[in-house]
């Protein structure tokens, strides 16, 4: 149950009194398994259906929703009958978690994550349906192939700290990150990636031209 909120009746709007961000709020809803509507006045609402792993949104200004003060969130627990009226497919809840972190962590890493952590992405995020930065695809390409420390991601790709932190925070939130340096493979050879160097290529010039071209489309 969502015990950290000041009420949990099924049809009464209650104001969030916790210090939790939208991310932890969504995570608690997922843990509780209770279908829930989150409302922010003037912005719209998000319905979360934990058992289906999906959400439905009327929000047009998602950055504002994700960065709204916690006191603005109103939580409504849905009854079974309310839930069963939602028959159309929603969107993957992992996409909401990506967006929440992306907009809330524009310059700093999400909690529990250190710049010295060696991480790897389990898979690519669905970048065509998510907010991205100019170098998000490059970060994903590197981290889906090579476990790499967050500090080294910046250095290898030549990207500034804020952009790397924003993308990695979103990836952490959406659950696609393995933290290698805290796992059982700590002593494995994978950690040697902190000592690798970029591969040289004669096609670097073409690549830069093409990247600039596609980015400008």
């Amino acid at each position, binding site marked *: 149950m969502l015990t950290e909120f000041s009420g949990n009746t099924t049809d009464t709007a209650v104001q969030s009194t916790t210090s939790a961000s939208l991310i932890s709020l969504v995570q608690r809803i997922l843990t509780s398994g209770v279908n829930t509507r989150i409302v922010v006045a003037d912005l719209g609402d998000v319905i979360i259906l934990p058992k289906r792993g999906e959400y439905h949104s009327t929000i047009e200004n998602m950055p504002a929703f994700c960065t709204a003060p916690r006191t603005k969130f109103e939580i409504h627990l849905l009854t079974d009958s309310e839930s069963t009226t939602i028959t159309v497919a929603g969107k993957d809840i992992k996409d909401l978690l990506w967006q929440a972190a992306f907009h809330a962590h524009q310059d700093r890493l999400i909690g529990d994550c250190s710049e010295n952590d060696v991480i790897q992405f389990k*898979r690519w995020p669905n970048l065509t349906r998510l907010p991205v930065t100019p170098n998000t695809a490059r970060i994903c*390409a590197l981290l889906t192939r090579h476990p790499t420390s967050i500090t080294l991601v910046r250095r*290898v*790709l030549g990207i500034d700290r804020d952009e790397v932190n924003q993308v990695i925070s979103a990836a952490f939130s959406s659950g696609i990150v393995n933290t290698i340096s805290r796992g059982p493979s700590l002593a494995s050879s994978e950690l040697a990636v902190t000592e690798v*160097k970029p591969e040289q290529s004669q096609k670097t010039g073409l690549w830069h*031209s*093409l990247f600039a071209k*596609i980015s400008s*489309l």
Partner: protein
Amino acid sequence: MENKIIFAGPVGSGKTTAISSVSDILVVGTEAKASDEVAQRKDNTTVAMDYGVLNLDGGTKVHLYGTPGQDRFNFMWEILSENAMGFVILIDSARPDPLADLDHYLTAFSKPIAKCNGMVVIGVTRTELNPRIGLLDLFYERISTFKLNIPVFEVDGRDRKDVKQMLLALLALLDPSTTRTRPT
């Protein structure tokens, strides 16, 4: 490698549209009136190839080739794929068995894909017709059986932003900085 990117996938998956949405020239097509079961889906279909271009600073060109979707034109697939720098494979999620289509194209293009070190992006089209949570997970599961580590995106070929993001992902795979070797 030549400066060319191949767009492949079944009939109606959006290859011609995707190339048109980013090409610097009007796409040169080889469309003919569909006369078989394809006619139930659309009036015309590509029979040899589609061709578009990205003009880069300094006069360099990157050629965009779309392969014909029908298997009976698959002799063109090998010809067009030779020495490609990368592949965009579009899979129509509204067809009866999109995962079988994925298998078919990854298998058919396995040699040129291996030759370019697995530079492939998968675009899943027409998802709005059959929205399913976890659809991309199924694609990733199937792709893992091919020992490939490649991105899968939902794509609308009519939307330049979607095609742009697919091409940026392909370029990210090609980025020398993201393919690293251990020091000797």
